[in-house]
């Protein structure tokens, strides 16, 4: 299990500044979707039992009950799967680096990291009606070494996160500049 006190490959003196997941609204949308599926099940059952009560005496009724049970288990399984997809996607900002942990389905997991002093450009992006209303969006981090951007997706307060990363990157660059490499000390 992950612990904020024991990050993967933790550096000496490294402290966690922020742990970010996707905005709660993203999870809320998933919850509403699955509640609707449960609601359809309840409404369908109610209609059948109210208008066709004789269905409970039919020989095929056990098959309907098994189908209903299967349906409930199926949507419950996929709700949990959907929650895991949300819950295990994490971005961790420390005073030394940013870590991206992304769960893609059940059998694919990507962990990447960038050192703060390498960061060249940080861009926040809020596009669309819902992201604007609920104040969530993306943050893209560009480093010197990588062509590909490091992205934080659908996170709350993207502008605040951008500011935090910029400030931490400046502090980290100043710290790195003060640390003179040992070979330069030898004349």
């Amino acid at each position, binding site marked *: 299990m992950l612990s904020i006190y024991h990050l993967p490959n933790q550096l000496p003196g490294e402290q966690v500044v922020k742990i970010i997941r996707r905005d709660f609204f993203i999870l809320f949308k998933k919850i509403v979707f699955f509640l609707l599926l449960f609601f359809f099940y309840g409404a369908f059952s109610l209609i059948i039992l109210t208008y066709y009560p004789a269905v409970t005496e039919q*020989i095929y009724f056990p*098959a309907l009950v*098994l189908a209903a049970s299967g349906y409930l288990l199926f949507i419950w399984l996929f709700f949990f799967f959907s929650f895991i997809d949300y819950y295990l996607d994490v971005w961790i900002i420390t005073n030394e680096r940013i870590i991206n942990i992304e769960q893609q389905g059940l059998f694919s997991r990507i962990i990447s990291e960038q050192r703060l002093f390498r960061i060249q450009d940080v861009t926040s992006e809020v596009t669309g009606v819902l992201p604007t209303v609920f104040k969530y969006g993306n943050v893209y981090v560009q480093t010197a070494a990588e062509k590909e951007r490091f992205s934080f997706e659908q996170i709350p307060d993207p502008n605040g996160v951008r500011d935090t990363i910029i400030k931490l990157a400046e502090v980290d660059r100043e710290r790195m500049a003060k640390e003179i490499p040992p070979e330069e000390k030898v004349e």
Partner: protein
Amino acid sequence: MSFPISIFLYIYFAFLLFWVVFSLAEIYHMLKYGFKTATTFFITFGYLAVSLIIISASLIYISQVNWQSELSVFSGVLSETSEYIQE
């Protein structure tokens, strides 16, 4: 043509097997990669509890049905009633 309704039971158990495999994979991911927090344990426990309720209710119902009853198709399709609830 008629066939025993136990076929539905076998299909259900096959589905249940598939469901158990995926549930175990999900719980494994949750406990291995989730943060060591109360939320992780609470959500996992909630998933197991609700699943147990659904499966228990289904199994209680399943145990009351006479699965040897036969369902006739193509002869007054699905209209017959049966005493499939065991006395």
